[in-house]
């Protein structure tokens, strides 16, 4: 899923400073799961904005709404009335959601309240880790299901750099395992280390022509 984290309060307040009536809009999918922009976070942010405003003698009026997926136009339609009644929208969705909202309500200023960070998964309570770089050319068949493109700090495809720390930790982050040590251990366990010995040619960095666009036929 898509992971995001809330922007610093000062930055959010700067974005909406010229406006009085704000719709704080959450998204019920990825950002709800990663505690960044679901219904609960919408409620918290809205009251923080009102409080911060009143402490400075400035009235901030907030409306709250959370749709299941902000990245789908059809789901945004239900917000039409609320959006029409406000000066600006503060979206807690990922970048795709913010842009869908901004495109759907073109006359209304829409601002991001979160920074979208990566595609990942929850490793444990409160910890999300990056898993996929959406490179468009999946290598997981060669690496025991561990993605070196994003889990190696340098995205190396042929083995670890010379910087691996003692015990197989990453040069950049001593708390993280070196992705290539993880790959090595997994392939060794499966008796498939020959895969790691195979030369991996340079990646097609243009496997997805940006901006990405896929036409798919319904199954």
């Amino acid at each position, binding site marked *: 899923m898509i992971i995001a984290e809330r922007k610093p309060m000062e930055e959010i307040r700067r974005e909406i400073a010229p406006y009085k009536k704000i719709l704080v809009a959450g998204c019920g999918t990825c950002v709800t799961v990663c505690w960044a922009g679901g219904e609960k976070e919408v409620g918290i942010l809205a009251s923080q904005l009102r409080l911060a405003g009143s402490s400075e003698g400035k009235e901030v009026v907030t409306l709250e709404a959370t749709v299941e997926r902000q990245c789908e136009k059809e789901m945004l339609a239900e917000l039409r009335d609320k959006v029409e009644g406000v000066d600006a929208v503060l979206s807690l969705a990922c970048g795709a959601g913010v842009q869908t909202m901004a495109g759907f309500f073109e006359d209304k200023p829409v601002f991001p309240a979160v920074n979208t960070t990566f595609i990942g998964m929850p490793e444990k309570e409160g910890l999300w880790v990056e898993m996929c770089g959406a490179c468009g050319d999946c290598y997981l068949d060669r690496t025991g299901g561990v993605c070196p493109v994003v889990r190696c700090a*340098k995205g*190396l495809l042929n083995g670890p*750099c*010379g*910087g691996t720390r003692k015990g197989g930790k990453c040069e950049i982050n001593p708390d993280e395992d070196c992705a290539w040590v993880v790959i090595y251990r997994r392939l060794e366990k499966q008796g498939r280390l020959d895969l790691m010995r195979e030369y991996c040619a340079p990646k097609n960095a243009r496997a997805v022509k940006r901006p990405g666009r896929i036409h798919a036929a319904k199954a």
Partner: protein
Amino acid sequence: MAVPLREILRTKDFVVTAEAAPGKGSSVSKTVEHIELLKDKVDALNVTDNQSSVMRYPSVGICVLIKEHDGEPVLQVTCRDRNRLAIQADLLFAYSRGVDNVLCLTGDSVDVGDHKEAKQVFDLDSVQLIHLVHTLNSGKDMAGNELDGGTDFCVGTTATPSADPLEPQLIKVEKKLRAGVSFIQTQAVYDIDELKRFTEFVRKLDPNVKILAGVVPVIGAKMAAYMNENVPGISIPQHVIDELAQTPKGTGIAKGIEIAARMIRQTKEEKICDGVHIMFIGREERVPEILEAAGLL
């Protein structure tokens, strides 16, 4: 005329290389001093490529300077700052100016440098970079186009004999050897047994590749402890740290030089590997003292 490194590697029993680190700024006077001081005392001078991810004068620029001063340069190329177009273009430029030794490295992360918000490239990794150099050597570019004038680089790379765990590193070394290298300049080694094991591993796979052991003098027990803790791929044995700890104040550099020279002597006398690569970062002017103490001058 400087003797080409590939010739030296073929003919000399014990090869000695050192570093000429580019400075930060457009002035090259300090680097030229180091070049003048070292070029006739060592077989080749490596030029680092934005070492430690700190922006500096370009490696290829200093390599050309070394040629102009009649020295033998080794162009260090990392994968961090350039994509495949830029790397190929720089290599063509280097070769056209007589710089024909290249050391292929991954490169440090930008996180350790002085431009921490820079975009890291790593379009290629070091194994792919070795393949790339051989592609240019065959007269073609990476896209398969014919070159109007190819290259004939002598290709080297690095390795970390002290890595923990070692096995994943050795698999990568194996891939580098298969890609084709004439020499390996290792990360700093302090443990002779480690070096022996690494050399045996490499020689089994490729008896022709020349191994130059990395030598970085340690000038104090605190520095040694710091390096053990913070410099990836480095492991300084306790007996070296103890020796440094017993050194009177103010004599740390001399002791570091003595220990480095002793290691070089042993490496040479016992024919553990084919030479050494001395990196005395920030103290290049004292490299001759190491060479002298090791009996290499």
